[in-house]
């Protein structure tokens, strides 16, 4: 359904996307996982037609984003990171406006507005101005705008940013329903658990490049069965290196060490060597194989860093 081929985008000297490619199948929920500034929003903006890529191509439903932009925009629903609503208008008026822009007739737009309002549980507050809504309610109406015209492709850019867990679950449920209804979804997030629970396939993106993509299983297979052990403390590279002969070292620098271990006894042995050598250990953390450990393996840092 969506074919992205080697798209690149720079803002002056800053490279936002360094040539990324991926495909999303029809009815699939495809997650983009990465920290802030990784290039997620730029990717969504290019696919939505808001930005033009410096190079590369995007095809959606066999149409080229440059040549058939308007046709593509008609079958797409976009939910931006900001709450892009008219605060003076009510939730219902916002939906009527956006639905009409997508070409729905007066009757269709009324019916569609009621459908999505019911979906997010905001029918009772639909006539109140959006400015009186809570953050979670605004996020839900923001989502409704993207859904009102029953798009074939739904682009969601961190739609749960800054809301409470209950509202987040509600939004994730709706997106799951849309996906199971045949809508192709691209979902960007920096929450690991959202990507794990929601997405059929995930691409890990950092510094404008896709580091890996696949199903959750395929990605966790990248780190194998080993646990990742991260040790920080008051030591130097030179001090620690002689102690690591039989250990799989992922990363080593002054005051920071990351190794892969197959069982917990190996961790004890390693720490024993540190203590014997009189090396001060500040913090030890162990990550079992998961999307988080994949992210750490690929980027060398935790997602919240």
């Amino acid at each position, binding site marked *: 359904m969506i074919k992205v081929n080697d798209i690149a985008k720079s803002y002056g000297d800053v490279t936002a996307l360094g040539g990324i490619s991926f495909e999303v199948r029809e009815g699939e929920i495809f997650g983009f996982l990465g920290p802030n500034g990784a290039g997620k929003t730029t990717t969504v903006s290019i696919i939505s037609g808001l930005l033009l890529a410096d190079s590369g191509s995007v095809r959606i439903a066999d149409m080229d984003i440059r040549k058939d932009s*308007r046709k593509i*925009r008609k079958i797409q629903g976009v939910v931006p990171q900001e709450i*892009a609503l*008219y605060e*003076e*208008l009510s939730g219902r008026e916002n939906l009527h406006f956006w639905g009409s*822009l997508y*070409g729905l007739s007066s009757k269709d737009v009324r019916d569609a507005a009621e459908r999505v309002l019911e979906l997010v549980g905001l029918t009772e507050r639909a006539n109140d101005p959006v400015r009186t809504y809570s953050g979670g309610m605004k996020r839900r109406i923001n989502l409704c705008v993207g859904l009102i015209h029953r798009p074939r492709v739904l682009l969601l850019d961190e739609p749960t940013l800054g809301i409470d867990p209950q509202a987040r679950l509600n939004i994730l449920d709706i997106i799951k329903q849309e996906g199971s209804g045949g809508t192709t979804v691209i979902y960007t997030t920096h929450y690991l658990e959202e990507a794990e629970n929601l997405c059929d396939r995930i691409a890990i993106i950092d510094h404008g490049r896709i580091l890996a993509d696949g199903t959750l299983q395929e990605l966790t297979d990248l780190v194998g069965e080993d646990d990742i052990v991260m040790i920080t403390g008051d030591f130097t590279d030179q001090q620690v290196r002689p102690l690591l002969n039989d250990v799989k070292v992922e990363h080593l620098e002054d005051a920071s060490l990351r190794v892969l271990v197959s069982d917990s006894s190996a961790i004890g042995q390693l720490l024993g060597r540190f203590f014997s050598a009189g090396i001060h250990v500040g913090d030890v953390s162990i990550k079992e194989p998961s999307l988080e450990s994949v992210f750490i393996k690929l980027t060398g840092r935790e997602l919240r860093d």
Partner: protein
Amino acid sequence: MRQVILIVMKDLRRRLRSPVAVVSMMFIPIVITLVIGLVFGRSGQVELPRIRVLLVDKDNGVFSHFIRQGMQQERLSEMIDLVEVEEDEGRSMMEKGEASALIEIPESFTADLLDEKPVQLSLTKNPSETFLPIIVEEVVETAALMLDSGVRIFADPIGRVQSMFEGESWPSGNDVTGLLDNSRDRFVLVGGYLTDSLVVLKTEDATAQIEEEGSTQSFDIFAFVLPGSLLIGLLFISQIALRDIVREREYGTLPRLLTAPLEVGHVIAGKTLSAFVITAVSCILLVIIARFGFGITLGNPLALVVHLVATIFMCTGVLTLLYGFIRSDRAADAALPVVILTMCLLGGSMVPYEQMGAALQEAGKFSPVFWAVDGLKRIFIEGAGLRDISLHLGILYGLAVLTVVPGTLLLRRRVKRGG
């Protein structure tokens, strides 16, 4: 076109829900016109109260009469209400604040002056008043100066007359002839200053003349002030309406609009059209207030409508062009009021164009505001028709086209580039 109308309707609905900014701008012309009208009166003339002046005349001589007569001459008597009182009564009235000033002329004032001795006039001012006592002080100072000059010039002949009458016999013919010759020489010397000028400046009250001629038309300060203040209001209202382009960009609704199936041109056209409609509706309301609130005679209806449409079109065009260069809400805050107020200042919105210097008047013609204000004044005050303001209309419509087209293109380019 459907998309453009949808955007216009949406913006008008939003403005109706949140009208404070536009309504507060509508108060600009109302307040300015009202305040100036209240200060200067409907006819535009300042009505000063008569100044009550108390006079204690202990001399009762020729020169004290000169002062009294001077203050009761025709023009000054219109301004000054001179009341002659005894010293105690005068002081008591001043303490009660019943007059603006008290003038005391001392005993033997005339005699001492004739002897060329220093004399002193006393003036007591009412401290609770600021402006009126100063007028009295100026009048008394002028009278003192005239007396001083007169006595110095004519002291010799006056002294000789005095000595003639102090003797026991009548003066001889030679003495009288000598005195007359002396006096004539002095009159010739100062005559040009003391007697009436040959060239007389005649000033007339235009309002009075028109009224005398039985005409019903009179100068209306509201009709004179409102066009200028209306333009300030309309430019600021256009500015608020078009600011939505910058604000929607910052709120994220503009990028979202651009992901919908419509063209950038639809968005810009919708925004410009809604600014035009919002300015037009505000203008209609202000004209209704002008007619029924201020009682302004609106003049030729066709000329008024065509001129107002041109004015609103010009306001929208100029602001569209300015917003083509504005990147953010903060930049709009910083730059646009300065540009608008400068245009208004040059165009005669703040200071009447007629009161500006020649150079400023020439510069003012480069401000679109001048053509809008001047045209409206002609319609309101002179009852001008379409033909009378054809130059104004041509310039206003021309400016509107010349600004709205490049403004729209600039905005289009900016929006297309993602803001």
